């Protein structure tokens, strides 16, 4: 594939289980496409340097900072955003646990935090407190609600087999 600044290319990928396509220029990030073209604004734009984790999504099953991925790189890929975390009308166990443990304050970091936590529980269904701290180290919360995130992840992990 060759894409130039003058000529957009069409990428095809799956977002939250739905096949999508988008016309993109080479420098568009995956984050740009999700927010500005697909209207999925749950994924937050913040530091744009891979430091804060607010733009975390799962790409082909792995947690990544969508600000550090070009849209063209997601071509033929599978993306999960916060909008696809629960199923229709039903919250994911992590979302419920975050609500019950009072983990959500201003809410800005929560979509990224939840997807990082989702990935952590997929790779490690019963993490220790230290492993949760390590797994969420790439997600900053300016309300500093870290303690409740750990509680929330521990609570959600209890339901895991």
């Amino acid at each position, binding site marked *: *594939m*060759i*894409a*130039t*600044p003058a000529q957009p290319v069409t990428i095809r990928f799956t977002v939250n289980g739905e096949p999508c396509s988008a016309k993109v*220029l*080479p*420098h568009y*990030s995956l984050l740009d496409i999700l927010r500005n073209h697909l209207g999925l604004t749950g994924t937050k734009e913040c530091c*744009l*340097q*891979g*430091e804060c*984790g607010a733009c*975390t999504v799962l790409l082909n099953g*792995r*947690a*990544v*900072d969508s*600000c*550090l*991925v*070009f849209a*063209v*790189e997601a*071509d033929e890929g599978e993306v999960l955003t916060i909008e696809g975390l629960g199923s229709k009308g039903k919250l994911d166990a992590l979302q419920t646990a975050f609500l019950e443990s009072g983990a959500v304050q201003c809410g800005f970091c929560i979509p990224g935090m939840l997807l*990082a936590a989702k*990935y*952590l529980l997929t790779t490690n269904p019963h993490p220790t407190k230290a492993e949760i701290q*390590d*797994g*969420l*180290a*790439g*997600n900053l919360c300016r309300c500093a609600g870290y303690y409740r995130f750990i509680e929330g992840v521990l609570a959600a992990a209890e339901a895991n087999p």
Partner: protein
Amino acid sequence: MKSFTYARPDSLNEALALVEEFGPKATILSGGTDVVVRLRAGRVLPAIVIDLKRIPALRADIIEIDNHLRVGARTVMADLVADARVRSRFPALAEAAHEVGSMQIRNRATLAGNICNASPAADTAPSLLVYGAVVNLVRSTGTRSVPLDRFFVGPGKTVMERGELVESIDLPLARERRGSAFARATRRRGVDLATVNVACLVKASGQALFAYGAVAPTPLLVSDESGRLTERDCREEEKAGILESLISHAAPISDVRASDVYRKALLRILSRRVLGSAIARLQSQEGLS
């Protein structure tokens, strides 16, 4: 961000032709965790960005071959950290790869990319150096292998020539007993660049290798051949003397992360610490579980 031409070659030959054609005007995209930040900041303005992620010949796994572990050019940090062979045989590398960025970064960042950036503070470089890692380079006319201690030239500079790409990185599997460890100091826990990082490897023969990061223009490999550091009767003062003479090779600068004096002080402490961990592992024959 200024736009650019993006190429996603499907084959190694196609990629090699592009890097040969564009030379320094090309930017290589692999994990992108560093490159995308630099592109966004306008610190690099390439004519073309060449994405290596769809080239089957550049592997994304770790294989055992000819008494080596071979880490493919596209292998990411998360997969290094999780690999049982790396954890048991090259624990200092698993520890270093685990310190890189965050979980999200480790899911994208490649070992080859970390080396090609040639940052004096690259977290994986000291561990790779004490293990005697070899970088396998490929170009359209052939291949060559460069030991990592001859790979770095200066900050951001390597011996790689126009038209070359990293194909893989080899880690020699040792027969002799050894112990190794990695440690680093940062201003804050979590996502930060190393102020100083150190890897240490001690062999049953008593030889001790240290590699320091962020204290010279390139990661620095030094060794002590006296055999004294692993001896039980080696007193603290004698150890300190040997470590001090090794540390004297470091020439740190003062920058935003630390002063030169502070870096030397950290180097002293971290050297003692990794030596202790490496000796404990040599004695227990254990890597990371």
